[in-house]
């Protein structure tokens, strides 16, 4: 049970690195996406390479497993929507949190938008596929026939 709290130190490391690498700043992200600065791509590429090598070695050692996902339409449509938001704000969900953590007030409209977007998605998926997950009690009351 306590293991879930281990998310906290990993998150702290993640947040410090995102801040220290400048990813919190929309100017840094814009500079990268306009191909004026290569830092983001080197940073991102070396992160993926490190994770990839580490995970492949761990899998070979039998310590971890995973199943690659096949491409579905939602991966593309969702990423188009996400990309518009990311490109407009020049911030994605991790850096939005470090903005809040750094005390940047402009992070607040972003954060409220993200929470609203997630909420709208969850609401919509409950309406279209109410029985896909075992719904908690409060949700069962609001969905006729789910119980």
């Amino acid at each position, binding site marked *: 049970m306590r293991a879930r709290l281990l998310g906290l130190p990993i998150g702290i490391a993640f947040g410090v690195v995102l801040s220290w690498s400048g990813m919190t700043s929309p*100017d840094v992200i814009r500079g990268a996406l306009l191909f004026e600065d290569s830092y983001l791509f080197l940073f991102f590429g070396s992160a993926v390479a490190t994770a990839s090598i580490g995970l492949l070695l761990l899998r070979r050692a039998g310590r971890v497993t995973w199943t690659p996902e096949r491409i579905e339409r939602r991966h593309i449509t969702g990423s188009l929507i996400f990309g518009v*938001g990311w490109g407009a704000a020049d911030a994605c969900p991790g850096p939005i949190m470090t903005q809040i953590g750094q005390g940047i007030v402009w992070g607040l*409209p972003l954060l409220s938008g993200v929470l609203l977007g997630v909420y709208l998605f969850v609401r919509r998926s409950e309406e279209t596929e109410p029985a896909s997950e075992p719904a908690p009690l409060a949700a069962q009351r609001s969905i006729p026939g789910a119980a």
Partner: protein
Amino acid sequence: MLHPQLAWYVAGPALGLCVIAVRLLFNARLGVTGGYSEIVDRVRHGSLAFDWRAWLLFGVLLGGTLFALAAGGPDFHGYGWLTRDLDEVLVAPILVIAGVLIGYGAKTAGGCTSGNGLSGTAILSPASLAATATFFGTAIAINFLTRALF
């Protein structure tokens, strides 16, 4: 950006190690959007018994705070080109809308820059590779478009 950047060859691998730690500890992808989702889900149902994804998100927030304390302030003032080139009353609504697209889009795609971009591409998941190419391409196009327009 007001503070010097950590060298990419230190910052990148450090981020990669976070992805490995999450796989070892929770047998899952490191995805920041999952934390937002977990909080929205729990709070809606009147619970605060958050799982590791929400704790990771709280950690990211705290990481930002620790950085700002150590660096003597936030990494930037204003909000990039938006507050430089646009009327300030427009900026908050634009950011709310951008946030909605970020949250809704990431949930639809099953991940954001960390879940699909970082963790999914690291295991060469076809869905994540397609998602990552799509959102990078889209975000690049949006930035060139806004630079041409404003």
